């Protein structure tokens, strides 16, 4: 076999390769992008979750912005938190700005008992779709739909649907307050709130903006906009808008007076130790409160719920939401295309 063909081809390819290398080298030198070396350093410190929780497109974007901006004001990597931010400040030779740690809070406490179902949904299990179709399986048009859009949005496995309540719950230890769930929730139930000293905080666990009677009918635990909490608050932290109370966490001093005043138990005090039993009704379930000391979920510690617990039996009679349908429980809601899409069944009558 004549090997010259092979030698020639190797030679030509080699020369071509060399030429290309020279061209690439020249071009790379000529069009070199000068990047601040600190950007790479900062990026190395960041957690590389690329969650976008900081408000920038990924960790590289955040690092670039950190290096280019003059101060550290308002910059926070929610995933890395304060330690990462102080490391970045060190790299950049600036003073670190302390930011309050935040946590996502699902503002709904319409448990299965408080907010009974009056129909069944068998369509696509996505909150977005249920929300675009109708009010949901219960009578409350503002509450958690329980299909788990937030669960799918969370990159840190920090939010789950509680199977007993049917409501999304945040695992405080895992939550990095990146805000992905806030964007995912079609009912704007989730809010990033200050974690608070010793993780203690006050939250209005409801988003129902209906008038009191309507809200109460749909859910026994709903905020009815009665303004009692606003009256007892000494710090102007509570505002009532559209029949709904809201606690400003920058003003709240955690005195827990609003929680006592709330007639429906919509205001929750999270991670507080149980109250001393002196002011309490005898029925106050102390054992229950003691059972969960530092569990990092949004479960309220129960003491003030005593009045709500008493109110529950009377409320339990009320929550029939749609009275008239003879079989409200059997009515299933979806867009109904698929009903005809079971062609076997509709076709039957003619076959007979």
């Amino acid at each position: 076999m004549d090997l010259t063909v092979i030698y020639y081809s190797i030679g030509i390819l080699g020369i071509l390769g060399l030429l290309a290398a020279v061209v690439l080298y020249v071009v790379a030198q000529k069009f070199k992008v000068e990047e601040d070396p600190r950007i790479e350093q900062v990026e190395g410190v960041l957690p590389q979750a690329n969650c976008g929780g900081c408000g920038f497109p990924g960790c590289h974007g955040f690092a670039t912005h950190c290096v280019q901006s003059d101060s550290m004001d308002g910059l926070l990597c929610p995933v890395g938190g304060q330690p990462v931010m102080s490391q970045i400040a060190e790299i950049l030779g600036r003073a670190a700005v302390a930011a309050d740690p935040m946590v996502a809070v699902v503002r709904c406490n319409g448990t299965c008992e408080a907010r009974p179902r009056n129909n069944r949904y068998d369509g696509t299990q996505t909150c977005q779709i249920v929300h675009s179709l109708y009010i949901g399986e219960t009578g409350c048009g503002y509450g958690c739909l329980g299909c788990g859009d937030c669960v799918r949005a969370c990159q840190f496995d920090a939010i789950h649907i509680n199977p007993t309540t049917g409501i999304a719950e945040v695992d405080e230890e895992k939550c990095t307050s990146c805000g992905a769930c806030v964007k995912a929730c079609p009912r704007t139930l989730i809010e990033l709130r200050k974690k608070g000293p010793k993780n203690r905080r006050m939250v209005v666990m409801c988003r129902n903006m209906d008038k009191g009677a309507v809200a109460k009918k749909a859910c026994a635990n709903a905020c009815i906009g009665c303004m009692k909490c606003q009256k007892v608050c000494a710090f102007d932290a509570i505002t009532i808008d559209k029949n709904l109370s809201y606690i400003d966490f920058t003003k709240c001093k955690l005195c827990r007076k609003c929680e006592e005043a709330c007639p429906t138990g919509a205001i929750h005090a999270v991670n507080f130790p149980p109250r001393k039993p002196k002011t309490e009704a005898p029925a106050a379930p102390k054992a229950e409160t003691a059972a969960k000391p530092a569990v990092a979920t949004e479960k309220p510690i129960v003491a003030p719920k005593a009045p709500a617990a008493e109110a529950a039996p009377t409320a339990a009679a009320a929550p029939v939401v749609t009275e008239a349908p003879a079989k409200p429980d059997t009515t299933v809601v979806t867009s109904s295309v698929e009903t005809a899409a079971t062609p076997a069944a509709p076709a039957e009558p003619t076959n007979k």
Partner: protein
Amino acid sequence: MKTFKIGGVHPHDNKQYSAGKAIQQVPLPKQAIIPLVQHIGAPAKPVVQKGDEVKVGQLIAEPGGFVSAGIHSPVSGKVLKIDEAVDAWGMKMQAIYINVEGDEWEESIDRSDKLVRQCALTSQEIIKKVAAAGIVGLGGACFPTQVKLSVPPGKKAEVLIINGVECEPFLTCDHQLMMEHTDEIIVGITILKKALRVEHAIVGIENNKPDAIEKMRQAAAKTTGIEIMPLKLRYPQGGEKQLIDACTGRQVPSGGLPIDVGAVVDNVATVYAVYQAVQKNKPLISRVMTVTGPSVENPGNYEVRFGTPLNDVLAAAGGIPEDTGKIIGGGPMMGRAMSNTDMCSNKRVSGLLLLPESMSVRQAPQACIRCAKCVQACPMGLEPYLLSKMAAHQMWDELIEHNIMDCIDCGCCMFTCPSYRPLLDYIRMGKGKAGGILRARAAEAKAKAEAEKAKAETAAAKA
């Protein structure tokens, strides 16, 4: 026999339950709840107040804009309040509550059954009368009819197409209307022809209604310029664009309106309402609804005054059967299952379908096998598998690029999918979002243009 060219499916029509059942009256309710939004466009503005006495046919809410429709009292009695009401899907809306007392009509309304053929009004007068009667398209979209009849300058209506297709399975209200009020509909068509100044009208009727085709043909033979066109059975032939294609062979461009190809489409029920408004001075206060289902005691066609609770309508048909799994407002293809039957009938609800549990259960969705059956079935030439994927990934801009706004919600894709994928669920959601984005963009562009105009004016004033 003609039909439309692109896509379509053939579900069993299931019309045997209520076909041929004479139209019955549903008794008057004790309280009527009349929503202010019963049409596409701006909500109507109430013109009555709490405590006012109203008569049947009296205007109780005036149109809130050009694309809007007035609402007339379907009952006589006293206005209880104007307050929030909950619709069949639990959504809130403003509504007028009227406590019914007796059944006293406005004197100007001719309540006799006598057929009035002559109409001496001009085109403008007819359109005015249609607008005053609050007539909307009763085929389902509830688009105000006077807007359709007011042909925009620069365009010309060449043909009037009347929709007697009723392609939706189970529903028979239009069929029965054509059987019982044939002459009125023919007179209504001549009135609409006059209003639009067109010579030719085509009535499209699917060939599963041979009796209606025959009867309409006989009635149409008495006049000129009305052609009854039997159409091959195919869903969604009743869609406006599909019907134009089937009857004339013209295709409405993407994003266009029927008038772009010189056509105006109206449903037979709308035509009947036009007849009543123009010849009898009777505004739109009732419609014929089909209540049907395999286990319904008295399935049939019922004339229902707006504001009657759906529970009363269901009671007239023998109540909700034990085995009911879903109550669907409308037909099985385009209708939506309801969660609340306290809601009142209105211009939008064309039927109630009570499906037993066995027929209403969804199949578990499986993976897409890329068979492209949905693409074949889509009557708008879209790619449903792609659109649903994009909607699931919230790619709103890409959805707009792929013409999601052309989707007519017909459900052919989901009907035909062998993997039972919830295609329409996602597409509908995506369409809602994309529509919102487009509207916001349009509003922004408008505001920007106005600001620039104001700026230019101030600059001109200074100079």
